[in-house]
């Protein structure tokens, strides 16, 4: 127990130190790198809390994709923060202090750290989801069965949010309107780094294989559509960074990506409609296999997770392509 507390305290101290350092920084490249460190430490804390699925997402999104996207943004703007006059910073400080104070005040109501008598531990509903789901759905990872089956409608909503965000970013970045015009030279192309190219070429199949593993192993361990989608996207982003945007877009034309963005929600909602046509409720996967409810659930979860993975990967990749195209056309 003391070791556990010690590790927690150390990680939280690192987290606070990183946050303070970031807020005092003016060089945005260094701040971006520290943001990645912040996410990594957060992911470690999630692992300590036994929330491996969340930790996985945090590590993939926070450390991987968002760092690359932030660096892409930075290459479009200046890399030093503009100095805000002291007086203009005052309202921000007031808001931050007020919010922080409220949160600290609210934390008084939280149960003691590690207490076994919290409602989460004692409420019968916890037992229902942890035990009943093994009979209803029969997959070891309860997180996946809750995410994709019990609250499948919420997850559909999340997927629509990802879809909308992707479409909105693409509309803002312009590639929906401009066709790919001839570019003079590859700025993001790291062609003279031969070692990097060889190692990336070697690792690429394994990255995509790992993404597939995460997608299909989500029933048994941490993972699922969101994480797999992000890993797919990291693979494509890495390919685009190392081999140049043109080659990446030959492999994955942007039109294909745009279609794939829409495939996810359509497939997800299509599963729901299919359930209704088979005589059940929307997203009632039991109807896929009337004799064996658990088998039907497996099919439904697999389809839904694949839909999530496709859309997340396509949205992330096309946002990166959008930024990278902007970088190239602005030079």
């Amino acid at each position: 127990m003391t070791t556990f507390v010690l590790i927690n305290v150390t990680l939280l101290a690192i987290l606070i130190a990183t946050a303070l350092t970031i807020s005092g920084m003016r060089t945005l490249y260094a701040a971006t790198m520290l943001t990645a460190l912040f996410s990594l430490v957060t992911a470690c804390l999630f692992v300590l809390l036994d929330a491996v699925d969340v930790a996985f997402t945090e590590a993939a999104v926070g450390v991987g994709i968002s760092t690359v996207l932030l660096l892409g943004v930075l290459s479009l703007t200046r890399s030093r923060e503009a100095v805000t006059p002291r007086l203009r910073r005052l309202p921000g400080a007031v808001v931050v202090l007020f919010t922080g104070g409220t949160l600290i005040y609210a934390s008084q109501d939280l149960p003691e750290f590690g207490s076994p008598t919290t409602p989460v531990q004692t409420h019968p509903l916890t037992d229902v989801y942890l035990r009943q789901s093994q009979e209803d759905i029969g997959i070891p990872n309860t997180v996946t069965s809750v995410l994709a089956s019990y609250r499948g409608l919420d997850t559909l909503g999340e997927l629509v949010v990802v879809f909308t965000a992707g479409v909105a970013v693409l509309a803002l970045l312009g590639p929906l309107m401009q066709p790919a015009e001839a570019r003079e030279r590859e700025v993001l192309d790291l062609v003279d780094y031969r070692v990097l190219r060889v190692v990336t070429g070697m690792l690429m199949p394994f990255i995509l294989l790992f993404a597939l593993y995460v997608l299909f192993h989500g029933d048994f361990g941490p993972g699922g559509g969101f994480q797999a989608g992000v890993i797919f996207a990291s693979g494509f982003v890495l390919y685009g960074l190392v081999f140049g945007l043109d080659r990446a877009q030959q492999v994955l034309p942007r039109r294909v990506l745009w279609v794939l963005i829409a495939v996810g929600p359509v497939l997800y909602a299509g599963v729901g409609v299919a359930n209704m046509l088979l005589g059940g409720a929307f997203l009632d996967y039991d109807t896929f296999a009337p004799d064996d409810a658990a088998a039907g659930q497996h099919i439904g979860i697999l389809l839904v997770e694949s839909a999530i993975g496709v859309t997340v990967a396509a949205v992330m990749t096309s946002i990166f392509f959008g930024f990278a195209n902007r970088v190239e056309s602005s030079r």
Partner: protein
Amino acid sequence: MIVLEIASGVLLAAGALFVISGGVGLLRFPDFYTRTHAAGLTDSAGAGLILLGLLLQGAGWETAVRLLIIMLFLALTSPTSTHILAHAARRDGVPVWREGDPRR
């Protein structure tokens, strides 16, 4: 069994030593290239020895396979990233530190 335990402990301690010395080097070394060397040590020797030590703890073959895969990936990616950092710095014309130069 006791031999494995001792070997595992020694490897873990050696790995931890490499990680700590990498951290100290990162803070103390005078210029970019030497600091890159220190950081690279943490990833390759430090993490590698720690993973070897964990491998000898005997947690079943499923965990062992995963540890081996992680070791393989670290062995590929960590020297690559160190190399790329140094290569990029060299291309940007970061000068190499010589004895007597001030710390950079």
